[in-house]
């Protein structure tokens, strides 16, 4: 066919996407496989959560959420993740700043250490804190003599959650800050801005979308954390049960509607996170892709 085509036709730019050249069978097979997989593993479970939660109508659903123990679990989850996110924003920004802007001995070690919570099983993360602060732990006696409780109490939950979610903010910010370099900060200090003014007026506005993205992911993980929290919680109803732990207890008690009602809240959070994440990604892309610069005007 190509042999009969005129040179002009051959030279014409190809406007149609390449995908069109794959046979229809291949295309449709791939799309169907992808669709079926998504349906089975994502949409079906999602739908099941809401279907089970609303099985006995809105009244029962809302009643399950109003249970004092449920309310307490929700409050505790919000508190724990709020503290964990705040701590990780501070740690994450500090770590990313150090890694992106300075050269120092052990920099690569620090980068590896930041990733540890990703590679260690959450249960082990929880165990670490029990070994450190538990009754038989390293600091257990010291803490007991001062009547301080960490394990089986809120501080333990906060510690475990913070540990598990530590990498999210730092990991997100390191590449952003490395790409930005430190020239704008240098410009700011030559103009007389001090350290804090430079951070709040120059650095923060430049990293805000990356930071927000890290916070969203960090928060989602903090609220949904089960393994590490389960080890340090002690499952004291109304006191140290976060939402994921409470769901497990309800489920084991055959209170399916209540379990799924709470689960639906976490699911909603996940969906909200997805929307927020896409919004931030879209914003970041727009920020990174500048409009075509204006050509030099004669002066």
């Amino acid at each position, binding site marked *: 066919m190509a042999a009969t085509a005129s040179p002009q036709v051959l030279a014409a730019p190809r406007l149609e996407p390449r995908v069109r050249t794959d046979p229809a069978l291949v295309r449709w097979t791939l799309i169907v496989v992808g669709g079926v997989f998504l349906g089975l593993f994502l949409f079906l479970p999602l739908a099941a959560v809401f279907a089970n939660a609303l099985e006995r109508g809105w009244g029962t659903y809302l009643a399950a959420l109003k249970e004092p123990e449920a309310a307490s679990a929700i409050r505790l989850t919000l508190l724990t993740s709020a503290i964990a996110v705040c701590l990780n924003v501070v740690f994450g920004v500090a770590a990313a700043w150090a890694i992106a802007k300075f050269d120092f001995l052990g920099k690569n070690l620090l980068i590896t250490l930041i990733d540890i919570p990703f590679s260690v099983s959450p249960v082990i993360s929880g165990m670490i804190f029990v070994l450190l602060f538990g009754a038989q732990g390293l600091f257990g006696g010291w803490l007991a003599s001062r009547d301080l409780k960490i394990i089986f109490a809120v501080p333990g939950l906060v510690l475990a959650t913070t540990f598990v979610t530590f990498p999210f903010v730092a990991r997100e910010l390191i590449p952003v800050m490395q790409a930005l370099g430190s020239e704008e900060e*240098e410009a*700011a*200090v*030559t103009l*007389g801005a001090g350290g804090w003014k430079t951070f709040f007026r120059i650095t923060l506005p430049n990293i805000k979308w990356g930071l927000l993205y890290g916070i969203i992911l960090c928060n989602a993980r903090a609220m949904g954390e089960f393994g590490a929290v389960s080890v340090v919680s002690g499952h004291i109803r109304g006191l140290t049960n976060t939402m994921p732990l409470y769901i497990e207890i309800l489920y084991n008690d055959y209170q399916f509607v209540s379990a799924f009602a709470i689960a639906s809240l976490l699911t909603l959070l996940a969906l909200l996170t997805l929307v927020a994440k896409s919004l931030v990604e879209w914003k970041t892309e727009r920020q990174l892709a500048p409009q075509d*610069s204006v050509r030099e*005007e004669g002066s």
Partner: protein
Amino acid sequence: MSIEARNIAKRFGDFVALKDVTLQVPAGELVALLGPSGSGKTTLLRIIAGLEFPDAGSVFFDGVETTDRSVQDRGVGFVFQHYSLFRHMTVFENIAFGLRVKPRRERPPEERIRARVNELLKLIQLDWLATRYPLQLSGGQRQRVALARALAVEPKVLLLDEPFGALDAKVRQELRRWLRRLHDEIHVTSLFVTHDQEEALEVADRVVVMNEGRIEQEGAPDEVYHQPANAFVYHFLGNLNLFHARVKDGKTYIGEPVNGRGHVSGGVPLAYVRPHLLDIDRQPTGENHIPAWVKHINSAGPLVKVELETSRGDSIHVEMSHERYQELLLKKDDAVFVSPRDVKVFGDSQAHAPATQ
């Protein structure tokens, strides 16, 4: 305000950036730090600004030691090669930044800030771009905004790090003339770093030539150009041909050209000749000439550039006026004689024998 850097030394790991450099910039002058990359010029500028700290030596502004003062307290205006404008602020806010971050006691009222920024926008002829963001500007416009931003806080000295390095040739030329005119207007002591000898010679009151962490020569542009202190300076300030030299009765005769083939042998003095200081003749004139053949002619430009080859295959570059070129009626492969009008011989030429261009 005058700047003085005394016995500055700085190393980065194994790399020695500056070796005992002493530099003086008199108040109100525009001085160029000229040198190839890695010569330490930018490091020196950053040490003067306070963005870098020297391993040894001190910096003085108007005779007052400022070596240990932070950047913020030095009152310098710094212009970066890649502009470093604040990308999330408009042109107006970029220029206003230095005034807005002043401590409350010193901060001018809002209307004074506005007036000052508008005045600077007029000075850089970009008042119509006040509400744009840096990414919407061209390179030349960005650099002018960066300059206005540095000037907003009325710095005592202005330091520019390759200010036109990232711009294309045409804009670069326009902008450097504009900088010269601006300096004549505001007279702030300025020190700028460049690797472009044309830029340094055209813009600066004084040129400081640097190489390998040392100052090779400093002086007025014509002084540096016409009385180079050594082979490096001569080589760095323009193209040249390198010949074996014979000195007889105080006159220097040129021998075989020295090219990239490594003819340089110990003890042989070298003669340096700029391409426009070589003459081409059909007939041998006097005794100071060597025979060569025309290999390539490029007559596009203000001067005609002729590349010649000797019998041994070394090349010689000659530049001549169009009139002379027409007189000679040169063609490729013509046999001619090359003679120098001016020859430079340096005592240290061995150490600085440059690579072929």
